């Protein structure tokens, strides 16, 4: 799991990513300290690590079908 702390406008955010088949998530915080505290709590087991959802092949197929229909219209 990659926990990337970034500046997100006036806020701070941690982008969490995993394997190529997993959807990344972004969690925003009002301060850098809060973001780092959340990340640290996870590593200490005080906070549950986020679970990344798999990118399903079904949803990808649906998008392809929708695009084809749109062309016919």
């Amino acid at each position: 799991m990659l926990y990337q702390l970034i500046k997100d406008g006036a806020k701070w955010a941690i982008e969490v990513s995993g394997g190529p088949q997993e959807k990344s998530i972004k969690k925003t915080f009002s301060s850098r300290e809060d973001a780092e505290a959340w990340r640290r709590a996870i590593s200490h087991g005080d906070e549950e690590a986020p679970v990344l959802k798999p990118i399903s092949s079904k949803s990808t197929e649906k998008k392809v079908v929708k695009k084809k229909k749109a062309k016919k219209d």
Partner: protein
Amino acid sequence: MPTHFTNGVSDVIPGNPLYDFGRLDPTKYHIFWDDFDTTPVAAQWTLTATSAGTGTSAITVPDVDGGVARITTAANEDDGIFAEWISETFLLETGKETWMKSRFSLGDATQSDFVIGLHSSDTTPLDATMRFAWITEDGSAALFFNSDNNTTDSDSSTVVTLADDTYVTVAVHWDGVSSIKCYANNALVTTMTSITIPGAELSVGFGYLNGAAGAETTDIDYIFVAKERE
């Protein structure tokens, strides 16, 4: 001309199930070895990056002979990345010797925080509850070895003074009793005595943070950890 043991070699006694196995018993040591021919990925390592400045802190494996984990940092002070093996798989023990060896080159030897070795799981390994690792701290190019069992925090004297973008090879040997021998570039530099080792499992880890503004590049050539199993 090498000596050819065409029937194989053995390091086990009669009656051992591997007695007729023509190679040395690979189960005698628990070994971690990464030559970084492949990128440390999020499935095997927990990666903790900070990219507050311009750019993105990341680890890649570039086209370099020998295999290198290259840390590139974003441009702010305290930007950088730590990588720790996803599980704590090494327990240092009395009666079981342990060796660690690594080779690396830091982008800025003085203006940086750097750690490599074993530590308890933590997004900021420099503050981890327990450590058995080489460390250099922001503002100093001195590399020392640190053994912290959460009760006693012991630092070696300076093992080597680092220079920017210059490779160094470091190693330690825990004798299984109370001493840690510290080596730089394959020469013994100092011995830490009366050490009480960390008493819980530790992860292999490494990481680099900028100590000043400006993107940096740090290369880790390899990490080797070996512990007697029996």
